[in-house]
């Protein structure tokens, strides 16, 4: 019985869909845990539903005038005769999600030297040598690479210096930064620089230069001293001490927000996640990236070993994330970067944001690598693969190929096209597709083709485990949910 005045009609009078079936809008689903599924639409909006509800949705049997029906309608999983603006809105949302692809290559990695004072067990590329001519990038190469950098239409350009140890060719870094800023007076992009360094050579001169040009530093901190030193040996056996001293020096000189650290996970790391996190806390670092075990080694592991590795790493990740959530509960903000990325992807209307987890793949169209010798690679992993003997994803050389030769090369376009997740078995109907990505180089390296069989893929297994874990936290643990949502950057 309506409590409204006589002039007003009840809601039934405004429902043109009351006794008609609804129509389905494009959607996908994936199993989440016992009996629950993630249902996602074409642009990544989602609902967690049990199987009964999922089935009634697909079979068009959801009763009208229920909260579930209206949730499905409002989130564009269905449409009915009462409204047809859903198509316009979905089209707009799809366009928004895809828009970042058009912005194109934003991340440009310059491998300024292969020389390094370390001999890390997991590194494929560095050379312990003093031969600068053989393994340093030249100014001529840098100039050609910069030509290509500014051909990218991206409004934001990030130049990241890699190696070996980039500071061993600090002169060239200075040259590139100044030359890039000079050219940028014309191009007017949002230009940023990062140096990834082991910090052995972090002199006052380097720090002043970083401050002057607002350069970020990124270093490797694998964990407590014994772990770090065993992962990352150098003459003098003091890599941990050098690293933390360098971090502190950079924090004091440049500011805490100007230096970050990454860890590389090895077998030895797997049992020490809390100690690793404690090391980060002790060194005033605000975030950690619990990176997976790399499949690139001096021998690529077989598929079974791949997935076993993922299972073991996932226990490491869960333990780490639980510990980090507890730290946050105690009032200290400390972020796990990969989780933050995933939460952002789950909630953001914008696409991309992380070159290693996007479709179309980030290879060349989001990030590109200019090697010391001018060779251009679709990604850092492509460069590592070349170091191991397979140059499949070498796209050309800055001295001999043009921008068009490189970005329109057959190998690149074929790779991007054939690895698009919407076209792949298991991916094309997977509920996590809007948040996931495609990794042609990884699948080529581990299975021999850029698509691979996802049932055998460590990439798929890892991502699915993380999606399921994070979504379950968001759905069922309100404390964890609040913390994770506070990590979201808008």
């Amino acid at each position, binding site marked *: 019985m309506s409590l409204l005045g006589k002039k007003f009609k009840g809601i039934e009078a405004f429902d043109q869909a009351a006794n008609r079936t609804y*129509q*389905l*809008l*494009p*959607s*996908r*689903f994936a*199993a989440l845990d016992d009996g629950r599924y993630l249902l996602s639409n*074409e642009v990544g909006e989602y609902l967690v539903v049990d199987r009964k509800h*999922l*089935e009634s949705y*697909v*079979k068009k049997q959801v009763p009208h005038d229920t909260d579930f029906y209206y949730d499905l309608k409002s989130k564009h999983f269905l449409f009915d005769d009462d409204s047809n603006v859903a*198509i*316009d809105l*979905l*089209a*707009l949302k*799809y*366009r*928004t999600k*895809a*828009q970042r692809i058009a912005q194109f290559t934003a991340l440009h990695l310059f491998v300024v030297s292969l020389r390094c004072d370390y001999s890390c067990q997991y590194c494929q590329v560095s050379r312990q040598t003093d031969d600068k001519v053989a393994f340093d990038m030249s100014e001529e190469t840098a100039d050609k690479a910069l030509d290509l950098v500014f051909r990218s239409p991206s409004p934001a350009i990030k130049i990241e210096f890699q190696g070996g140890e980039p500071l061993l060719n600090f002169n060239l870094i200075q040259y590139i930064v100044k030359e890039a800023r000079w050219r940028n007076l014309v191009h007017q992009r949002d230009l940023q620089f990062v140096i990834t360094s082991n910090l052995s050579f972090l002199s006052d001169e380097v720090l002043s230069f970083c401050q002057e040009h607002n350069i970020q530093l990124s270093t490797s901190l694998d964990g407590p001293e014994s772990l770090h030193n065993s992962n990352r040996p150098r003459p003098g056996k003091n890599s941990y001490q050098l690293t933390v001293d360098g971090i502190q020096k950079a924090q004091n000189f440049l500011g805490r927000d100007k230096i970050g650290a990454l860890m590389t996970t090895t077998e030895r790391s797997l049992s020490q996640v809390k100690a690793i996190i404690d090391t980060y806390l002790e060194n005033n670092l605000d975030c950690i990236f619990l990176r997976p075990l790399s499949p690139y080694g001096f021998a690529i592991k077989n*598929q079974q070993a791949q*997935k076993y590795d993922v299972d073991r790493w996932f226990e490491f990740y869960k333990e780490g994330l639980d510990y980090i959530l507890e730290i946050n509960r105690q009032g200290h903000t400390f972020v796990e970067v990969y989780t933050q990325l995933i939460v952002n992807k789950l909630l953001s*209307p*914008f696409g991309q944001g992380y070159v290693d987890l996007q479709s179309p793949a980030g290879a060349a169209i989001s990030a590109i690598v200019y090697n010391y010798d001018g060779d251009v690679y679709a990604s850092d992993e492509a460069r590592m693969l070349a170091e191991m003997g397979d140059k499949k994803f070498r796209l050309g050389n800055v001295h001999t190929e043009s921008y068009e030769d490189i970005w329109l090369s057959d190998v690149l376009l074929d790779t991007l096209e054939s690895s698009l997740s919407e076209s792949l*078995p*298991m991916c094309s*109907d997977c509920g996590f597709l809007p948040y996931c990505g495609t990794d042609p180089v990884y699948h080529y390296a581990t299975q021999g083709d850029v698509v691979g*069989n996802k*049932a*055998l893929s460590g990439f798929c297994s890892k991502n699915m485990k993380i999606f399921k874990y994070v979504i379950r936290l968001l759905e069922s643990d309100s404390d964890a949910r609040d913390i994770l949502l506070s990590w979201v950057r808008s």
Partner: protein
Amino acid sequence: MKTHELNFDVRVFSLDTVKRALYRFSDKCSFDIQLKDNDITVTLHVKTDEDLTSKIKNEVLDQDLRDTLSKETANIRTLILANAFSNTGLIQ
């Protein structure tokens, strides 16, 4: 290595649906598939002792739902994408 047999009626579940479901288990088993009259016979060779038959049957049910979803929404998906890439003049 254990062997199990599963049967599906092709009038209830299409061959495609069954194949797609089986594909997801290719890390754990290999299959022989035969179609005779209306009967799809799947012979599973499972690498471990795990009993996958109920999981596979459930996956076939899920794939069947996916099949319905994709068939029913194919046209409207094309419409949405065409609309998305026409010139709407509005970029967020």
